[in-house]
């Protein structure tokens, strides 16, 4: 069609692009506008508006039934004296360090180990990635069985003569949080590994050749070639880890519900239980705002720094 109509036009061909260029910036086609505005409207209605309402609720006292009453900063003032909030915040930091740190280190280690194309390496990659495919709630159910008082872990300990270490892992305040981190790690390592594998694939082999020629050992090659080359992947991994740490909820909720007596409480589980169990939706929203500020603040500052370095 276009080919057929074009010769029929009177105006010379070179003028056409110039005309378009002049008209282009002045008027955006309605279709393009629709493609931008309709999703924006949907997003605004389903995401931004509820989020803004969440911010508003953080300044109210609301039981979910009566109308919310505005109480200013009282929720945040209460937070300052709330022992459970302090425990949850500390646990979240611990979670970020242990879960985040270990999954990054172990994810990178497995990626380095499995990057060479050898026979059977695909099997190991798949095996490590498999937990990512499972739903976390299903994962938690399996681990709950492992941690039971007469579960696999305790029987294993008894079998190797360490019966004295037998433990109610999820019911003891000293072990509950760590017992919950393990299944979360088990899943996250595979995910981080895949991210790093993709990053490692993108490194030019010539760089290693050159380093080798210059006499760099394996550690020096890792330190001065691999790590700097992975910088852009690191930005992704760090963002993913921080977001995943702060939103970690399903594993903890299905295994311990933040218990026993708040000892494995994270900010996310505390937010959920205050909002939907204690029906204090105002205070719950205030906790959600804190989580948002933490996540957004940490990630934004990291990304700004990372991109500035990249420029």
């Amino acid at each position, binding site marked *: *069609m276009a080919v057929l109509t074009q010769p029929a036009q009177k105006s010379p061909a070179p003028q056409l692009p110039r005309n378009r260029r002049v008209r282009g910036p002045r008027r955006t086609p309605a279709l393009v506008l629709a493609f931008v505005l309709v999703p924006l409207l949907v997003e605004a209605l389903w995401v931004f508006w509820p989020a803004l309402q969440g911010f508003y609720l953080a300044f109210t006292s609301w039981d979910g*039934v009566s109308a919310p009453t505005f109480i200013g900063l009282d929720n945040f003032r209460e937070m300052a004296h709330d022992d459970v909030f302090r425990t949850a915040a500390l646990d979240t930091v611990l979670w970020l360090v242990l879960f985040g740190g270990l999954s990054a280190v172990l994810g990178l280690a497995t990626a380095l180990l499995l990057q060479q194309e050898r026979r059977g390496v695909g099997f190991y990659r798949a095996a490590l990635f498999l937990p990512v495919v499972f739903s976390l709630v299903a994962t938690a159910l399996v681990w709950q069985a492992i941690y039971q008082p007469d579960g696999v872990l305790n029987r294993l300990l008894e079998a190797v003569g360490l019966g004295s270490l037998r433990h*109610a892992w999820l019911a003891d305040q000293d072990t509950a949080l760590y017992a919950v981190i393990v299944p979360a790690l088990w899943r996250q390592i595979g995910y981080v590994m895949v991210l790093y594998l993709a990053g490692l694939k993108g490194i030019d082999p010539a760089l290693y050749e050159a380093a080798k020629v210059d006499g760099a050992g394996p550690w020096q090659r890792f330190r001065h070639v691999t790590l700097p080359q992975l910088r852009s992947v690191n930005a992704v991994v760090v963002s993913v880890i921080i977001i995943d740490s702060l939103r970690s909820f399903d594993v903890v909720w299905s295994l311990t*519900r933040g*218990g026993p007596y*708040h000892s494995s409480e994270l900010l996310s589980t505390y937010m959920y239980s205050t909002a939907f*169990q*204690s029906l*204090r939706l105002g205070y719950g929203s205030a906790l959600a705002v804190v989580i948002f500020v933490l996540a957004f603040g940490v990630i934004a500052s990291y990304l700004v720094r990372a991109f500035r370095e990249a420029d």
Partner: protein
Amino acid sequence: MTNHQPGRRRFLAGLGAAGTTALLSGCVTSTSSSTGAVTLQSNLSAPQAKAAMEDLVAAYAKKGSGRVSLNTIAAETFRTQLPTYLTSANPPDVYTWYPGSVAEAYAKKNLLLDLDEVWQTSPDLKRYSKALQSLCTAGSGKKDFVPTTYYWWGMFYRKSNFAKWGVSEPKSWDDFLDLCDKLKSRGVAPIGLGAGGNTAWVASAWFDYLDIRINGAEYHRQLLAGQHRFDDPEVRKVFDRWQEVLPYFDPDGTAVAFQDATTALLNGRSGMMLIGTFFADAAPKDALDDIDFFRFPVIDPKVPLAEEAPTDGYFASARTGRRDQVHDLLSYLATAEAQEIYIKGSSGTALPCHPDAQDAGTPLVRKGRKHIEEAVEITQFFNRDSSDALQPTADTALIKFIAEPKNISGILTDWQREAEKIWKA
């Protein structure tokens, strides 16, 4: 190409318009509904109970006076969504829920349908016991609930195991401690608990029973309503008593859920357990005849005898558009016939509220009925006598007490502080 673009644009615009109209009409049709079937929102999602509800709905449809569409929802989702249902512009009509202070919380906010007319016109409801009538009356003096079944809590055990160990039911608190001693010396965990996993609330049964035995049901209700303090000396006495039996608790009591704890009871790994009859839903059929229970031992004979017997039933939304149909359905649910259909279809350990309705007729159920009739006062359960919002504060305090009984003063101070936040909210 240019010729085609308007066509495509028109098509897309048309698509958008069609989508919008579909969305809008969806909104419109969902709000206009004063006719049609009554919606019954049920939290009875256990397989047997769900099937029994389906039987009940089918029987009501056969009667021909109205239709019901049953909507079964997982219990936990139902609990968290209930305020949303009741406050929405176009709520479901009838709900399974609990009478007493839980219903009162909604009644105070004018969310429940006034059921005075049902209670006055139904020949069945007039004959319900005084206790049930007052339980279903709101603070405003209006009836807002129709009770249908109840169950009881007790110290459950296996008859064959007690015979094997050569022990028998205790009558007093001292007998009870002796029994625990004997069981422990035979290498059995005397008392199973099951407050681990996601069922920490089971521990509240011990708090409830010790409190109604030591301080009485009246004090217990006032305490849960915020008229006394959890750090009062009366409450402290409850925990002093609890400390006497704490050494006999299964050490895994706070590590396993009640379903696992009752399995341990049925397998003879623990001796007895304070639990409600609902645990029998999951018990194998051959074990059912071997199950028996005894009354939680009386501690102070001067305190009027109280038992925990949670009542289940229905209330309706004040914003329903089908008032007459709802009244008709609730009058039907109050009949002996309806309650018998439900009991027959479910595990059969629940007792009917209608005085003439037949229960399942097993020796266990007959004993349970007598057990409740002998009580002067009836309590529901911790969350039903207070609110679901107060329950987590009890869970935290009681599980911590079981782990660190020496810390009781601090635990009770914390409990009071957390409870105040709920009462004030």
